[in-house]
């Protein structure tokens, strides 16, 4: 029904699995370790094999098919191809072959593939975390991780609540955008032709109603939350208080070990 139907970047998939049952804090920390290590390991292609195996393992532990995890990166595919292309065409080095006036170099090919893969893994790790952690858990986890900084004035709870609501409204707003786009198309709008300026102008009749609706929704939601006795962090408890278990420590140590060994292998051994 949607122009945007494939845009499902890391939508939460409720299920019962080992990964689902982990404390969100361990998952958030794990994804941070992984992403850091992907960025640090940049000399050889070997660590990418390790990450690949790791993703296969994590997805099987989370009852989400490997295919679903991989297809979830589709929205950023263009970005990945773009990164690859930029490096491919604009790097100096030993020429491999030449298409018209563009020369393809060995260095360009290698960095292109690495940069593309890096971005791909980054999205993959982030997505698998979002797919196995409900937005509320995720924001509870982030709130808890950020809470030490509260004393320095960081609004951890507000930040986390904002994130919960933003994630909750993504599908709703995608539907809404789709509807408004179609309504304007029916009024003869031309949304996909002409230059950049013309296209942007054509989007105004889509963006203005969307903003109006967002503000209206925000206002109504605020009233509804107030009606349900919400008053910020004050006096609030949780149905599922975060609980750090043995599994979490094990999982996190395993991830830490794998990411560190990836970096060490890459930098000093291979």
């Amino acid at each position, binding site marked *: 029904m949607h122009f945007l139907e494939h845009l499902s970047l890391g*939508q*939460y998939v*409720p299920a019962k699995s080992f990964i689902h049952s982990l404390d969100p804090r361990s998952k958030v920390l794990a994804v941070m370790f992984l992403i850091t290590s992907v960025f640090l390991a940049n000399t050889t292609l070997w660590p990418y094999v390790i990450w690949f195996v790791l993703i296969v393992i994590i997805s099987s532990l989370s009852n989400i098919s490997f295919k679903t995890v991989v297809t979830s990166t589709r929205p950023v595919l263009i970005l990945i191809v773009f990164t690859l292309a930029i490096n491919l065409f604009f790097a100096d080095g030993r020429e491999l072959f030449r298409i018209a006036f563009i020369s393809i170099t060995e260095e360009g090919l290698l960095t292109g593939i690495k940069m593309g893969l890096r971005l791909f893994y980054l999205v993959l790790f982030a997505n698998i975390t979002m797919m196995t952690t*409900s*937005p*509320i858990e995720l924001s509870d986890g982030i709130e808890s991780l950020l809470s030490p900084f509260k004393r320095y004035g960081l609004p951890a709870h507000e930040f986390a609540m904002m994130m*919960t*609501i933003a*994630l*909750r409204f993504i*599908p*709703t707003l995608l539907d809404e955008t789709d509807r408004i786009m179609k309504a304007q198309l029916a009024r003869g709008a031309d949304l996909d032709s002409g230059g950049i300026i013309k296209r942007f102008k054509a989007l105004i009749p889509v963006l203005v109603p969307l903003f109006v609706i967002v503000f*209206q*929704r925000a206002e*109504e*939601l605020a*009233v*509804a*939350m*107030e*009606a*349900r*006795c*919400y*008053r910020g962090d004050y*006096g*609030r*408890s*949780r*149905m*599922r*208080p975060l609980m750090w278990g043995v599994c979490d420590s094990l999982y996190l140590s395993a991830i830490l070990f794998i990411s560190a060994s990836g970096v060490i292998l890459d930098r000093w051994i291979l």
Partner: protein
Amino acid sequence: MDVEEGRWVSVVGDNGSGKSTLAKQLNALLVPTRGVCFVMGKDTKDPSLQWEIRKDVSMVFQNPENQIVASVVEEEVAFGPENLGLTSVEIEERVRWALKVTGLFEFAHRPTYALSGGQKQRLALAGALAMKPRCIVLDEATSMLDPEGRKDLVEVLTRLHHEGMTVVMITHRLEEILFSDLTAVLSRGKLAFYGETKDLLDSTTFALLGIKEPPLFKLWRNLKSRGLLEESTYPTVRNMVEDLVERLCL
């Protein structure tokens, strides 16, 4: 106007008659600019009591989409009790109860965006019930639903009402006043009628009150005035058929 505990009150009126403003007064989301509003003996103007009032009076709003905070059904229901600072055991229990009452128990772990409009509105009701309120206020809660969704919601409310829940239902569908004990009619911000629903049905003043009478009500009144229906018959299809068939000894 006064609403006694345990009654079911309908509030009807056209768009712009002030129905929603009235509803929000009951939950201290709005406070009177003049006059006073007491809920369970508490003045809604007193900021220190407003939170207490909202514990007793829960609301369900018109657009189900705009009152759902969480992405998973059970987390959504838990939102209210969490704000009350209850223990996790107590919250789980309330969530389970509220989901059962609204017939959503099997959906507990589903994502909220995948529910139908009618299910979303029952979820909103479950979220309100989990506060264990003494009164539920529905602000046009059926107006965006299809007939099936409306029927399901009203069924849940009827059950709760039997168990002693006070229900205030703002609506512009006159057919829905039949469930209520009392009806208030608002017209341009003024209370045009407040009394037993039965008295309103009997009166021929629908037109005067600026609301349109459903055709079945009209037929019911005409049949009664011609002596074809018992005085006590209610204007529902079932009651009318039973009565008429009995009279004609068919």
